[in-house]
């Protein structure tokens, strides 16, 4: 696989027809479509299927909980499972992922527990998991900013003689940001082991990708930076995995960065507060819903005889257990300590913050005293 990437002329534009290993009917794609990438083995495909199915169940559960008012917000990635899971699975455990706010499925794939994934969307804190344990940076909200962190992290790894590869996700809208350009350019100039995966879900909130760029594909942009670019069917997890894995191997071998565009579709609204009926037609959503990444792989695996009813039952049970865990995590009363606001602004305590902390502590103590007095009054008046 890596040979194919290695020999690609960086001055050649990517094909406008997306690289695909599985067609929408679940058949192995014909050779011209595969870009020379080989089909992952069946054990890996089953694992990808398992991860996608679990991630979707999680996503649906969280959307439901958000509609019930249990979360402040949730940006769903429903329909983008092939990008989320295919690209993330292509990383080795020691590699680092730099995700965006929409990449909760990728966090799950990196082993982050549901409660920790949802810490920020619930509004408890801005991040709920340990970056070093999961080799996963914080979910970035400012667009494309995390791509520069991925480049710097990878460059530091090279300077230290470590073999870490970094992968930065971003969306189609983010490619218009200056930081995307700077990240692509710095990565190429410094030859860092970085893989950029653009999930082109075709909308930046309401703005269609046609209003973001005049380029034929977002992968075309790679050429100008002097790195290879791949335009991939982002609803084909086999292709997303194979192309990303080749880029990861190439980066680890010292071959430098790669830009991968996964062409997919955001089935759900941008977040729960969005109204997509104002900017796209139901027919279009239905069209893409019929190109579902999980169904496509399922058809293939069933036809190949490698996904049994028993497998599916097991996967379904695991997904349901995770959904239950997710519901329970969100129904628990959040344990908040207002004084923790001051704990991590700096690594060392700062006098002015300690003063403000003391002021808040006094307020809280006074409130508690009032509450106790109120209780006592109510008891006395009985």
């Amino acid at each position, binding site marked *: 696989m890596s040979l194919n990437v290695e020999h690609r002329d960086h001055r050649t534009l990517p094909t406008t027809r997306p690289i695909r290993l599985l067609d929408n009917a679940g058949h192995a794609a014909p050779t011209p479509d595969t870009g020379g990438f080989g089909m992952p083995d069946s054990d890996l495909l089953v694992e990808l299927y398992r991860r996608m199915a679990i991630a979707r169940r999680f996503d649906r559960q969280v959307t439901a909980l958000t509609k019930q008012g249990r979360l402040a917000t949730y940006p769903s990635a429903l329909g983008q499972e092939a990008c989320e899971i295919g690209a993330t699975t292509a990383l080795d455990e020691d590699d680092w992922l730099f995700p965006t706010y929409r990449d909760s499925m990728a966090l799950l794939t990196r082993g982050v527990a549901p409660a920790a994934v949802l810490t920020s969307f619930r509004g408890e804190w801005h991040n709920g998991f340990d970056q070093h344990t999961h080799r996963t940076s914080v979910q970035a909200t400012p667009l494309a900013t995390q791509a520069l962190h991925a480049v710097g992290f990878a*460059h530091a790894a090279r300077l230290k003689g470590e073999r870490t590869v970094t992968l930065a996700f971003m969306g189609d809208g983010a490619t218009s940001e200056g930081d995307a350009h700077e990240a692509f350019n710095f990565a190429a100039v410094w030859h860092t082991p970085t893989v950029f995966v653009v999930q082109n879900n075709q909308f930046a909130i309401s703005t269609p990708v046609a209003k973001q760029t005049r380029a034929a594909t977002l992968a075309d942009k790679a050429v100008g930076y002097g790195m290879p670019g791949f335009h991939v069917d982002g609803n084909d997890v086999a292709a997303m995995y194979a192309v990303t894995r080749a880029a990861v191997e190439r980066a680890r071998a010292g071959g430098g960065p790669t830009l991968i565009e996964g062409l997919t579709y955001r089935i759900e609204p941008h977040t729960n507060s969005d109204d997509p009926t104002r900017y796209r037609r139901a027919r279009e959503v239905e069209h893409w819903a019929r190109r579902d990444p999980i169904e496509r792989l399922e058809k293939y695996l069933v036809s190949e005889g490698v996904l049994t009813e028993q497998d599916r039952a097991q996967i379904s049970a695991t997904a349901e257990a995770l959904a239950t865990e997710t519901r329970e995590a969100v129904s628990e009363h959040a344990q908040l300590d207002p004084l923790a606001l001051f704990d991590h602004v700096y690594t060392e305590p700062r006098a002015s913050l300690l003063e403000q902390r003391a002021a808040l502590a006094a307020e809280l103590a006074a409130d508690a005293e009032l509450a106790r007095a109120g209780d006592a009054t109510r008891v006395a008046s009985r």
Partner: protein
Amino acid sequence: MSRTHVTATPDVAPGEASDHSLTMAGALNRALRDALADDDRVVVFGEDVGALGGVFRVTDGLEAEFGSTRVWDAPLAESGIVGTAVGMAMNGLRPVVEMQFDAFAYPAFEQVVSHVAKMHNRTQGRVRLPMVIRIPCAGAIGGVEHHSDSSEAYWAATPGLTVVMPSHPADAYSMLREAIASDDPVIFMEPKSRYWSKAALALPVHTAPMQRASVVREGTDVTLIAYGPTVRTALEAADAGAEEGLSVEVIDLRSLSPFDDETVSASVRKTSRAAIIHEAAQFGGYGAEVAARVTERNFHWLAAPILRVTGFDVPYPPPMLEEFHLPTADRVLAALATWEWDAE
């Protein structure tokens, strides 16, 4: 990579006197050199910092001495420089990056405010960003537009940042070493007009801790609060005031965030009068914070309102007009003369 403490004493080159005169730019250069020599995690990059040695020569000779894996020229993109430094700091390095001029740091504003300042807090202490962003700042060098801004209030208003500004070569060396050794991100502002000021220094020099203000001239009648380029202005005003029988105390803040309430309050309670001097515009400037917090804490010791002697509320002027904009000793004394002094 080996890790050594930054407090190790650097060797004095053979034949080099241990006591010699250094400019502020030279002291900063020596601080970078010693930090690079003492700690393999330190890397220096930015625009033209390699072969050229930086437009102010602060990184002169460093790439040649330490190689281009420790000191190198970055592509010309400030957000990229700061953003990649964030990633490097996350991965165990201690990057020191240069923004070529104050106004050219603005493209990095989002990275600084949204990530550099917030990462440690956002991750509840799991991710530290030990990085230094050096910003040559302020005016009085005859610079054309965008080369003389005083941007300190933007950074100082951002929780999570430490913002310091030395005013003389000894502090420049000592504070930069301390900033590089800090586990928190530091905005290190270097007043350009002081780059060529000289002092006899025996290196390594350790001055007061970076986060503390210094009383650089003792007096009893009034406290002048200054930082960076205006410390010299305040000292000139103190000299001129002395000739008129006015005993002026001068404080060099050194650190803008945190603010050293203890040192400033002690001085103000002694003198009962204070003025803050800075080049930046007055409205919403750093002096507004100083006046407010010093008044809040010391109102009953004050005999007069705290004054601000600052640049005008105009975009930084062209070189031929900057002398009318910048605070001078005369303007400081004229401001002090507006107080009612007879009541005492």
